[in-house]
């Protein structure tokens, strides 16, 4: 099965998400995501997802890692 459309879709989705969180000062993260991010287990799952993606496709991995960094940085800033 050709996974190119799936990769392209994920790239577009993650790119849009990164643009959304990077271009707005008050990032509209879902409240539940911010609360869940406080738990180490959730962060571990997200990081494991990024690592798992790195076995599949480099473009998606980099975009997912950027999204993870943005989320982490924003939550660190907002909950400081």
């Amino acid at each position: 099965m050709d996974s190119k459309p799936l990769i392209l879709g994920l790239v577009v989705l993650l790119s849009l998400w990164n643009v959304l969180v990077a271009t707005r000062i008050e990032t509209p993260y879902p409240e539940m995501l911010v609360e869940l991010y406080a738990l180490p287990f959730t962060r571990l799952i997200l990081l494991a997802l990024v690592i798992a993606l790195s076995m599949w496709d480099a473009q998606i991995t980099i975009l997912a890692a950027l999204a993870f960094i943005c989320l982490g940085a924003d939550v660190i800033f907002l909950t400081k």
Partner: protein
Amino acid sequence: MASTGPLMVGGAKLQDSVLEWSKKSLNLYSTVFMIILIIFALFADKLPVEARWQLSTTAGRLLLLLLLYITNLVCGWHIALLFTIAVALVWAARPVFKPVGVPDFVLNGSVEGFGQGPNILRLGVEGFNDMKTTDATKPKWFIEKTLHENPIEIVEDRINTSAVQDNSAVANGRTSR
């Protein structure tokens, strides 16, 4: 039945063994390093405030970038990406002000504030010593509500200033104003 692999004796055999061992060791070291990096990335904001400050200075950033380059060369891009995430989160958790206890490095290489007794103890950021704090009042400010902040104390924002004094004797009437 003849062996399909190359026949190696003496030095060549030893070299092959060493190479195989180094590959296995690198795998082991990479795995351990990856676990350390995962923990580092998960708890980047829990690092001591002095460490976060030092790693966010110019020297600290250059050191981390050098380590990132070495990690990429030795362990590959997967682990380098993990390292990048950890480093980015450490930089994101950089303290706004210089923390207490971080010495000032001066140009001649000596460290100001070390070994000079308790009289030279620095209190927070230079110029912000002896600040008074008052209890937080109710109701909360709009910004406190917006950012879900619950301040216990508020630092007084009044600053006493004085006019510039010029007592030098060089001023005279010929000076154009």
